[in-house]
């Protein structure tokens, strides 16, 4: 029950999701919203924070209920818990900004079937105490947001020449003569950018492995 009893420390649990076990880049989970909502930066923020909220809240509740939920129906129970919090998000976002709600569209409700949330519920929250479940949920949620921003920034800068478009803080990066590369904000751009980023990450990992091998030999 106690949080720090052998195994990884709390900080490890928290930071694992940021990069080392990043849900999108390393585990390739939740690809649908990653590709669909990343055509501008503000959408990424909204989506990331919504997922973070649902992850943390459902993590807490599932962790508290973990001894009461029978093993056979656990997946169904997790989904109902998750769906409840997603419904809350779905009713809160339009009160904050209707434009945002329109541009995220069905993907807010589709957070229910985001495999990251169900995956963390099954792998972490249902087996650990509340403290650890919260840390893990925050780590994964922030990791997801980072991944979304990695895609969103590239796609918006190339596809529209701006940062933070549709907000009061919009910054135009290239001046008036910039010809936007609009394929980047269309569906194919999502596939291309994620593919390229995975390629770059792979390249770094391969290089690191090669170096580790070389130092091991020496």
């Amino acid at each position, binding site marked *: 029950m106690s949080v720090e009893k052998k195994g990884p420390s709390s900080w490890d649990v928290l930071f694992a999701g940021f990069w080392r076990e990043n849900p999108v880049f390393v585990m390739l989970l939740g690809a*649908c919203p990653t590709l669909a909502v990343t055509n501008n930066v503000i959408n990424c923020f909204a989506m990331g924070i919504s997922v973070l909220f649902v992850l943390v809240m459902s993590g807490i509740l599932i962790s508290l209920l973990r001894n009461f939920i029978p093993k056979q129906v656990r997946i169904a129970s997790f989904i109902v818990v998750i769906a409840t919090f997603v419904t809350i998000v779905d*009713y809160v976002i339009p009160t904050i900004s209707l434009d945002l709600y329109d541009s995220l569209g069905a993907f807010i409700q589709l957070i229910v079937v985001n495999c990251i949330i169900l995956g963390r519920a099954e792998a972490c929250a249902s087996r650990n105490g509340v403290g650890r479940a919260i840390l893990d949920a925050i780590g994964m949620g922030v990791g997801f947001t980072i991944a979304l921003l990695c895609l969103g920034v590239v796609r918006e800068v190339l596809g529209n020449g701006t940062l933070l478009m549709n907000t009061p803080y919009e910054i135009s990066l290239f001046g008036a003569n910039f010809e936007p590369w609009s394929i980047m904000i269309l569906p194919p751009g999502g596939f*291309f950018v994620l593919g390229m980023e995975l390629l770059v990450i792979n390249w770094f990992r391969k290089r690191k492995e090669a170096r580790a091998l070389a130092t091991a030999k020496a």
Partner: protein
Amino acid sequence: MNPESLPSVFINACIVNNFVLSMFLGICPFLGVSNKRGTAVRMGIAVTFVMLVCSVCTYGINIVLDSVGAPYLKLICYIVVIASAVQLVEMVIKKYSPALFRALGIFLPLITTNCAILALAMFQTQKEYNFIQCIVYAVGAGAGYTLALIIMAGMREKLELADVPDVAQGAAITLILAGILSLAFMGFAGLGS
């Protein structure tokens, strides 16, 4: 009531707004299952079938929820119905066709978390389709999903013979392929509207 004609509903769901390639729905199984053409076809058929069942169920749920005035329960009801529909389909297939059950294997239970299904339920509600339109929409979306899977599987089978750079192996090259395919599907924009 939506006045859209049935062929237009079908073409829209299947090609113009293809669930995988232009709406990014059901990407996980799309990347996971599209290695071999055989499994791709079977997965496509299973998804189409579940879509059809869920589409009919959703239509019923909407009538019930509207009559009791509880639209905020929609999401929870949909997901529970989808989960139980998948379970039901699994049991029926297991009883009547063990061969097909073995062939589908793990893909069948995973359909529950395929976002294409839940999205179908939401879109048909949003577009206010009538019963017949709902069925056509579900079949069209399923056909589009199957089409995307089969094309992707065909391309990936060819890719095995190609000389892909080391760093691009695996998910990276698959995503870039999907991007090119999605680019091709953008050519259909405007059709049927």
